[in-house]
């Protein structure tokens, strides 16, 4: 593994704009949520440090409050994390194969929706050998701001009026929604349009499996539609 210091710092610098601010806000909201639900500060901030997946963290807190069994909680959270499998399968092949090392198993912990969405958008404009350095700097910042933000959110929870908390918990999903408008490949655009309604519908009947159902069906249909149009263009 050899990272280019200048490119790592460029990733750090880019992260310290909107991405870190958005994640910071989301984690502030999450810290406040942990406090409001009577969890202790260690447990609340440990989820940001060790899990670093906001939707899964929210599921964890909600199920803890409902006194669900540990096994049920672990299964539900693990199922919402399935997306990381295909997120990594689409992110890491964009790094040159000669850079592959056990370092990947460390940097993968920093993979979450923010860094992934930005990478999928910007990697095509970047030299392949620069991508790992850039991602390391960018994603590390995203992870590093999360735990302090959670602790801070927990500590100030009592003093923050609920209308501010509303904004804090809304900013992350809104950011992801807005990044979808910047997705270019046609197959991925169709996948977003199909995945959203499929996810809603399947959530009503199979909440635990709704992401898998939406991903497999929506993604596969989108892929086939895209392939059909690609074949027609070549014919």
């Amino acid at each position, binding site marked *: 593994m050899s990272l280019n210091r200048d490119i790592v710092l460029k990733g750090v610098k880019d992260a310290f704009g909107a991405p870190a601010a958005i994640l910071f806000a989301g984690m502030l909201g999450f810290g406040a949520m942990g406090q409001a639900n009577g969890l202790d500060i260690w447990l609340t901030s440990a989820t940001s440090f060790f899990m670093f997946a906001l939707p899964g963290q929210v599921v964890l807190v909600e199920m803890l409050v409902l006194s669900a069994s540990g096994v049920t909680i672990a299964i539900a959270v693990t199922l919402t994390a399935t997306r990381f499998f295909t997120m990594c399968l689409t*992110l890491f092949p964009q790094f040159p194969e000669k850079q592959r090392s056990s370092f990947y198993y460390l940097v993968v912990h920093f993979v979450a929706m923010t860094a992934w969405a930005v990478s999928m958008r910007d990697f095509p404009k970047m030299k392949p050998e620069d991508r790992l350095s850039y991602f390391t700097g960018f994603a590390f910042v995203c992870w590093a701001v999360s735990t302090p933000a959670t602790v801070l959110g927990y500590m100030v929870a009592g003093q923050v009026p609920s209308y501010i908390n509303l904004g804090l918990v809304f900013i992350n999903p809104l950011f992801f929604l807005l990044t979808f408008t910047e997705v270019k490949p046609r197959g991925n655009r169709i996948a977003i349009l199909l995945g959203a309604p499929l996810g809603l519908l399947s959530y009503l009947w199979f909440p635990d499996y709704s992401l898998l159902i939406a991903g497999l069906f929506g993604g596969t249909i989108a892929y086939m539609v895209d392939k059909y149009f690609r074949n027609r263009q070549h014919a």
Partner: protein
Amino acid sequence: MLESSELSTMFNDAGMWAALIAACVGTYFWRGFGVYFSGKINQDSELFKWLSAVTYAMVAALTVRIILLPVGLLATVPISVRLGVSIVALIIMYSKPGERMIPALLVGTFGLVLYGLVMNFLG
């Protein structure tokens, strides 16, 4: 001797930490698994295109679900407000593609804060 209530609190704490550890291991499992298999995938292959579509469908499903069928604090806001604010943000985003992320985010977020403020004032 501990009171039984203290015992049950201790057990509860241990149970919570056990659930947390299991959930973190489960989450890392998918990340590590992804890294492990990523070496076998070429970014120009059909498999990569299919996996990308599946991932985008999954994250779109998750995002839209959090906005339209939320749990917790967001659920106290009527769906019409969440939907309306999201649509306004999307329109701002599309008004000048690639340059309106921050204004769209700010308008959407402040829209929701404003709703909370008004409700606070009325209620």
